[in-house]
């Protein structure tokens, strides 16, 4: 079917889609695929069709893993694993939440499983000896002084976030990096809304305290 989701065939002529890519052609296809998946679930989706979902979410999922794991190699491998798991469990998605929330939930579980892995911990400790992936801040629009101030800000937040307990850190990153709503975070972390609010409150307070004490 040339990689076109079967639920879109009636809406888009086959010839209009040459390959899966972002841009004027890909974007309406992605939107339609998202809508169809949310309305009908993903039970019947084929591997070829699933690529639209990957195309639309791979950047966010990679970013979530990078924030959680602080290792680009791990983030890349886990992003692949996340989409494979999503495909294997596609029958469980029935459009109850946003597709991105469902995928982030899989990502959080994978990251959590992975962290428990002793071998991974060993490598992480080894990596921390050289310093984990630092957040870069090159921005041509800023003066050297402004860049330096910004770098200092990020360094403070970064080191404070590193010291948060796992759940607080996850909630904090989803809120302030992914800009997810508290309801979405609750769905992604499989927690009650009140618990998420509590984690966010504690995380923000801790980060604030650590940043202030650092300065």
């Amino acid at each position: 079917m040339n990689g076109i989701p079967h639920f879109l065939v009636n809406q888009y002529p086959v010839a209009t889609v040459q390959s899966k890519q972002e841009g004027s052609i890909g974007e309406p296809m992605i939107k339609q695929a998202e809508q169809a998946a949310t309305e009908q679930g993903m039970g019947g989706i084929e591997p070829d069709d699933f690529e639209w979902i990957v195309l639309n979410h791979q950047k966010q999922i990679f970013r979530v893993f990078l924030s959680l794991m602080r290792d680009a190699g791990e983030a890349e491998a886990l992003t692949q694993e996340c989409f494979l798991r999503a495909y294997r469990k596609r029958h469980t998605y029935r459009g109850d939440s946003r597709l991105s929330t469902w995928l982030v939930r899989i990502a959080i579980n994978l990251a959590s499983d992975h962290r428990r892995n002793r071998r991974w911990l060993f490598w992480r400790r080894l990596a921390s000896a050289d310093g984990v992936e630092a957040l870069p801040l090159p921005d041509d629009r800023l003066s050297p002084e402004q860049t330096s101030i910004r770098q200092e800000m990020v360094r403070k937040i970064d080191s404070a976030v590193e010291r948060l307990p796992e759940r607080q850190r996850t909630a904090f990153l989803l809120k302030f990096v992914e800009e997810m709503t508290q309801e979405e975070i609750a769905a992604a972390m499989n927690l009650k809304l009140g618990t998420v609010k509590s984690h966010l409150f504690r995380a923000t307070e801790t980060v604030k305290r650590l940043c202030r004490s650092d300065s």
Partner: protein
Amino acid sequence: MKSFRDHDHRNGNAASASEDLKPELDAFRDAARQAAERPVFFWTRQRASIRSRLSDTARPFWRRGLAWTAPLVVLACSLLFFVGESKAPPPDFAGGDDEVLLIEVERALNRDFPTALDPAILMIDQIDRAKRHSR
């Protein structure tokens, strides 16, 4: 009622705490997003890799099994062959009898198949016989 009030108070505090840190949090968000930026070929390669692994997953189980079965059968046959060869009684040339040696060589040359394949030949014979009977 108290717990609700506490809850609201806590949420208010959380919001004010994040307001206090707004410039830092914005910088942190931008930095985290920038750190995750990758060139187009990275995403393309990743999709290709996922596609290839999905195709493997989508292949029926028996076909995935078949990929392993063929090399295993070859390995089993090779093992059988070597084991069979090693089990064949070594001809006694200790006496230095050239005639015995020549007879063994002639026998080996006259055989159509190696000794290790004797069970297979027997099986083929039985299948042939069974076919003839059924006709």
